[in-house]
């Protein structure tokens, strides 16, 4: 199983801080596309992805137990 985390406006849209999903074997892009469709998310091309707290490319393949986080454009500082 995989924990998928949402922040800022994505959290508001999805309505949850995180989901538990079986995503192992999928690429980041595939998972992103599924979530985008299921929750009618937009502007997802500005959203980065992290696997286990490191930024990950779209082609990276998710392993079992990986923690995925979708990272909207940041605004700290």
């Amino acid at each position, binding site marked *: 199983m995989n924990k998928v*985390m949402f*922040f*800022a*406006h994505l959290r*508001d849209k999805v309505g949850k801080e995180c989901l538990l999903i079986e995503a192992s074997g999928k690429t*980041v*892009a595939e998972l*992103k596309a599924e979530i985008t469709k299921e929750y009618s998310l937009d*502007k997802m*091309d*500005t*959203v*980065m*992805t*992290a696997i286990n*707290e*490191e*930024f*990950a*490319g*779209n082609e*990276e393949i998710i392993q079992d137990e990986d923690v995925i*986080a979708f*990272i*909207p*454009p*940041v*605004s*700290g*500082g």
Partner: protein
Amino acid sequence: MNYEISKEAIDIQAIINKVVRRDVGAITTFIGTVRELTKGKKTLFLIYEAYESMAVKKLEQIGKEIEERWQGSVVAITHRVGRLEITDVAVVIAVSTPHRADAYEANRYAIERIKEIVPIWKKEHWEDGESWMGNQLETVAYPKGRPEEKDLNE
């Protein structure tokens, strides 16, 4: 513990103390405070949210980048989260370096990098609503799903 996310008010002197060295004479700090007016719109207060564990890692990464690029530099960064009022301190960056020109440059590098890669988000609250702020122009897209070299080195 030179890189922290804090739920409490930041003690600026404590951050400075982390970078004081006997053989380094120049320390710069950057202090980001909550501004009342942004583009003519009046902010009542802000909420900062962080992906805390990753944010600390990314602050550490920025510190390492600086210590590699500016020899002999020491860095400490604390970013606050939660509800902040106008003039509250959101972030403190302290950098000490052997040469004072470097202390300014390295510090500037830190704030620019924070605005690129550290997972922290700001929600502005106004009299007539609220909104999560994206990057300032919302123009940066990440078609590959992560920041590219180009973005990282700007």
